[in-house]
């Protein structure tokens, strides 16, 4: 079975031989690889990074494959392109490595839940010839090939020097794998090449993955952060954003304090007026200078009276408060706000219009 799948991996022949034993595996491969192919459009940069190719080169390889046939050709292209890349740039270490790779494929094919992550890791391991990812899976079916993988990878690790690029790709594939793995009940953890597999470093690595995932969320939230790479710069941007928001709050509260001689007076009038003219006039008024001169009390009193006259919709509501024309003392206005459930819905309606 293993030599068959090894030849399948190389995929140099245009027509794919499908022995009966590996039919099921190849079907699973196809599904998984098609899923793989749909991943790049979403996060093309990470996928190409996993392949350790610059994006253009990856696209060239993908497109220039001589074997082009329908949907089945896609996975074939991926395999052939990756294997051709391997053939072109790196030397095959030994037959042992090939068999190990094939064994890994069979391991992953037999796994019940096929994630995207196990498939992404074979692809970079193809291209970078770093064949040492040990997956600590609880599945018993994979225990034997898994243990054989472990011993072989340990030998390889002792033999080879660590490539920095390989480490990065391992990190990135681990990122993705752990991000996907967080959804599962158990966590897949991979030991990086030459790194310890004791619980401390594993826990540290899990923690780092969590932090990176949340940093990505933050990056999406803060404008202009998605292009920046590197934690320190992203944190810089976040800090700037938070500081600017806080300063804006300060300025706005100053502005509000300046506009209103009294805190509670203008809110009724503000929400009584119609939404339309407010929206239009919002834009010029926002451009206007921050500090307004303080308005006299009489002006506000007029504000109070006017809106009530011309807003027919709200008259039944405001009618309840008509006894308190003159400036409503806080307790009374509080009661009126509290007692009327309509006011809450009214505000929410207006807010829906205006916000």
């Amino acid at each position: 079975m293993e030599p068959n799948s090894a030849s399948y991996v190389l995929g140099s022949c245009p027509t794919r031989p499908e022995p009966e034993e590996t039919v099921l595996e190849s079907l699973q491969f196809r599904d998984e690889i098609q899923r793989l192919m749909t991943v790049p459009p979403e996060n093309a940069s990470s996928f190409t990074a996993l392949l350790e190719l610059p994006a253009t080169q990856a696209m060239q390889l993908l497109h220039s494959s001589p074997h082009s046939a329908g949907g089945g050709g896609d996975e074939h292209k991926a395999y052939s392109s990756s294997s051709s890349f391997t053939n072109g740039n790196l030397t095959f270490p030994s037959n042992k490595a090939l068999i190990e790779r094939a064994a890994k494929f069979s391991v992953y094919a037999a796994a019940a839940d096929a994630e995207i992550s196990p498939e992404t890791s074979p692809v970079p391991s193809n291209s970078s010839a770093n064949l040492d990812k040990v997956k600590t899976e609880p599945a018993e079916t994979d225990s034997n090939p898994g243990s054989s993988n472990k011993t072989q990878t340990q030998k390889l690790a002792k033999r080879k020097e660590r490539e920095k690029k390989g480490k990065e790709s391992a990190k990135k594939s681990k990122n993705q794998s752990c991000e996907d793995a967080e959804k599962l009940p158990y966590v897949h953890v991979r030991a990086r090449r030459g790194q310890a597999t004791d619980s401390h470093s594993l826990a540290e690595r899990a923690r780092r993955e969590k932090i990176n995932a949340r940093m990505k969320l933050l990056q999406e939230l803060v404008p202009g952060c998605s292009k920046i790479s590197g934690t320190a710069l992203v944190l810089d941007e976040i800090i700037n954003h938070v500081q600017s928001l806080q300063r804006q709050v300060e300025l706005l509260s100053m502005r509000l304090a300046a506009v209103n001689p009294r805190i509670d007076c203008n809110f009724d009038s503000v929400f009584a007026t119609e939404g339309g003219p407010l929206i239009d006039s919002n834009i010029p008024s926002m451009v206007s200078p921050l500090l307004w001169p303080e308005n006299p009390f009489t002006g506000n009193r007029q504000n109070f009276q006017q809106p009530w006259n011309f807003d027919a919709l709200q008259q039944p509501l405001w009618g309840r408060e008509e006894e308190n024309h003159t400036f409503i003392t806080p307790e009374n206005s509080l009661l009126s706000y509290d007692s009327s459930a309509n006011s809450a819905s009214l505000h929410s309606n207006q807010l829906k219009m205006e916000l």
Partner: protein
Amino acid sequence: MRHPSSLKQEFLKKWILGLQRCGFSSKKSTSIMERKKAIKLSADLAMASTRNGRTCWSRALIANASRDHESKILAEQILGPESQSLKKASSTVPPVICSRRIRSKKILKRSCSSHVRRVRKIALPQKVLSANSVAKRLVQKRTNILKSLVPGGEYMDDISLIEETLDYIAYLRAQVDVMRFVASATEVVNQNSD
């Protein structure tokens, strides 16, 4: 994350409520700074109460507000009936438990490191090591700054700090939008009246 416009509505309701309960009647001096403080405070408390004590920064805000005498009354009024439970939660949780957690983590680390034999790592070249340490120091510096910005951030570890920052940014944005709207609306109304 919660729907932003519903968040804003809730925030606005509570904010107006708070401002009115603020006790700004003619007897108090209407200096601009006091008004600004009152506005900001009621806004902060309104937003914090919308989180219902689920996030650390909101609890820290409430705790800070409950500490001064002036703001304590306002905090009680704005928070309303759930104020008792919230105050209990906010007063005890952030400083005590988080510092306890940090201290216990340190003790655990120390005990583990003294007994566990360090697995030999492949030595990195010197440049890489120093670059790593420099990068770590930079990140550490910025994390400290962020901790000082987010209320209640000093007691949090990195992971929860980032989550809190996410929430806090969403809150600040909502607050800015609502305040800007109200400010411009009142200015327009005043303009129309003149």
